[in-house]
């Protein structure tokens, strides 16, 4: 059955796009929201100066939060924990999953540094009780402890844990928890908008042939394949 989709040329499409009115301040707000949520304090302050856009939260609180995030990203988990507790002692006391992940990261860092004895001690003293207190953590705990078993952990089935991306994951989790405790939304708006764009294009694909944005980072319109 031949598709009877409407065909929209590049010219027509661009004309339609140009007809959509956007407000500059909406875009500024989006950018500020992104900078603030991701914690780019200096950029946010500069952007505020240059564009006059007001940040939605006090930039000073961002500094504290960023210090925590940075500490985790650099593998200084114990330092990060102390900073979070200074900021708000309730966060870790009421977020068992986050606390477990931080402890887990600590163990990973000890293993990475080759401090096997200390790692074992830490696993037994700090992580084992978490597993006892909450069965949901047992599986992850076992995976982490498995790092100790392998001669060459970085080539083991659990090597993902040693990856830097795991630090980033933990850092992101802490960041989100702090934002929530400050009643701020933990996700910036920008990604949601982009997801909406992709969804809308998928929906429209069923009815029309038109120029797509395939590369989100450039936003370039590409002619549809023939």
């Amino acid at each position, binding site marked *: 059955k031949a598709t009877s989709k409407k065909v929209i040329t590049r010219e027509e499409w661009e004309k339609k796009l140009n007809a959509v009115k956007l407000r500059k301040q909406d875009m500024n707000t989006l950018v500020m929201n992104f900078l603030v949520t991701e914690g780019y304090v200096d950029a946010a302050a500069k952007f505020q100066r240059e564009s006059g856009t007001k940040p939605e939260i006090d930039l000073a609180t961002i500094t504290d939060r960023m210090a925590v995030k940075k500490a985790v990203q650099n593998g200084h988990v114990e330092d990060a*924990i*102390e900073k979070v*507790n200074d900021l708000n*002692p*309730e966060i*870790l*006391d*009421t*977020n*068992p999953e986050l*606390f477990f992940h931080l402890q887990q990261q600590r163990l990973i860092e000890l293993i990475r540094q080759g401090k096997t*004895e200390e790692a*074992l*001690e830490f696993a*037994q*003293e*700090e992580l084992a*009780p978490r597993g*006892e*207190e909450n*069965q*949901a953590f047992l599986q992850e705990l076992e995976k982490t*402890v498995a790092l*100790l*078993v392998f001669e060459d952990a970085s080539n083991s089935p659990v090597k993902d844990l040693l990856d830097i991306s795991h630090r980033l994951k933990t850092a992101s989790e802490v960041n989100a928890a702090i934002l*929530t*405790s*400050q*009643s701020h*939304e933990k996700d910036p708006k920008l990604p949601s908008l982009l997801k909406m764009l992709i969804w809308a294009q998928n929906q429209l694909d069923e009815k029309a042939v038109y120029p797509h944005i395939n590369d989100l980072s450039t936003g370039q319109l590409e002619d549809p394949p023939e």
Partner: protein
Amino acid sequence: MPTTTSSSSFSSAASSSGNRQADVFSRLASSDPEVKLKALREVKNQIIGNRTKKLSFLKLGAVPAIASALSDSECNSILVQSAAALGSFACGFEAGVQAVLDAGVFPRLLRLLTSSDEKVVDAGARSLRMIFQSNQAPKYDFLQEKNMEFLFSLLNSENENVSGLGASIIAHACGTTVEQQVLCEAGVLEKLVILLDGSLSQREACLESLATVLKNNPEAVSRFVGLEAGRYLSSVTELTKDRYPRTRLLSCLCLVVIYNTSPSYFLNMGTKSSLVTTLLELLNDPGQSGDEAALGLSSLIAEKEDLQKLAYEANAIKNIVDILKTGSELHPKRLQGLFLSLAELCSKLEDCRCSFLSLEMLDLLVNALRHNNADVRTAACICFRNAARSVKNLSAGRFTNDHVMLPLVQLLHDPSSSVQVAVLGALSNIVLDFSSPKSTFIEYGGIKQLIELSKSMDPNARCSALRALRNLMFLADNKRKELFYSEVKAQGFVSLISDPEPTVQEQGLALLRNLVDGCINSIEFVFDEEGLILDTVGRQLRKSPQAQMAIQGMYVLTNVASGTELHKEAVMQQLFPQPQAESNNFMLKFLQSHESQLRSATVWTIINLISPSSPGALDRHVKLREEGIIPQLKNMVNDSCLDVKVHKRS
């Protein structure tokens, strides 16, 4: 664990950590403020999030040490760290709360709220809030004026932690209607609703405290709904769609409270429906919100057939069963809530029961009977009780096999009386299974256990045990009745029907009614030990009993009067004992009762007494006429109760 480790390494790990803890503990007592501060920070950072450490530091005696540090110092950093440490001990950890309160540091924490240093205020407010979330929190006397002033000063504070503390105190310490009244009159609702527009933690504290103030208090609810023409009720309803699950939960619980107190504000079916579905969604939340959502749901649909239907149509049963089947360890509170919700769903709707029973749930339910938490066991029993109301499934033998019966019967010995009462309720329904000629229950020595429980200290247990026996003896054959008689003789039975609690007496008489029903030999029981039981029944009937008891008593007489000449005469003796200077003609009173069942039972007795087939019928008829009974009957030709009319005609 890896094989490279040895046991000595484990013990050295344990002892070195123990040493570290002892070391930091000793530094807490240091006179050097720098050292002390560092030690406080260390302890705080070790215990936050770590229940195990909280326990071990607790055992070392850390709490009193930290409390002294707090009390003896004026240095802000020490105040902040020690307050934070104490707050952490109290966070979700009952032993910690106890220790903090025992250390007598509560007043000092209160004084921190007036500090000029914002961080000190924050630390103090947080710790106090943790304490007030516990059941052990000191009672807050709302009726004292200065306490009210203080409370309002908290609510008025700009500091989010402080106003949250105010709301928390209300949420957890307000208990009685009087307190609710006093708070409302002082304007607490107006203060609390401001927090609805505040930060996340303020909103949540507000919702919790609103629920407490409004609970079961129609006046308070009406006051709340009246604020700005219902604006805040709408706000709370809106919050059920909030992004944060805990906010959705707390606003739902608030609405459940309002609905249970004053349903008229929820005429709109849409609101009821979305409340049910939101709670159902929240059931899937793995954290505390999910636990509380389950209890909230059971509270919402309790006794409300329309909401049960809504929930059923929204696939509640399948959802709940899926959660129960996930196999992971569920929090006892959540289990209790889920089972209670299922029980409520099955309470009136046969579709629910069939649906539930078709989902292979019995194993899960049976396991719950063995759960170590009494509330869970109770909830599971209630679930059984309601599911067993399904005659179809009952007669299919679903409940009467060993697999189900044995654990149920074992619960008759449960240390918790609420479990006992609940299992008795379940058994009462299950023993009504007429299709099985033999009863597993009886084989397990059930009768003996029921008789044991009929002598319990708990009147609810006595009542439920007798109800179960009553059901067991309904249309029972002599063999089954014998099992009862072998354990309970006339004297023993008399104490059952003379119980101080009227509800227990009623069940006892109902049991007697079933015992003497059936063949003529059954009647002999009331004549044992020179008619002890019959005399007791007669005496009770003459004492102006409550309607329900009278009904059962008269049915006993009806059954006795259906027997031989001797039996009928004995009944007459009880109705009109001689000599009676003043005739306490309770029969007449009963015939004029508002309760149609009582009128009916009395008429039945009379019918049996004057049934023409027996020799002494005529004499008895004469006697009854003399006492004014027959004329009364003639007046009742057009009795509103059809039953009575029919009997009368015959």
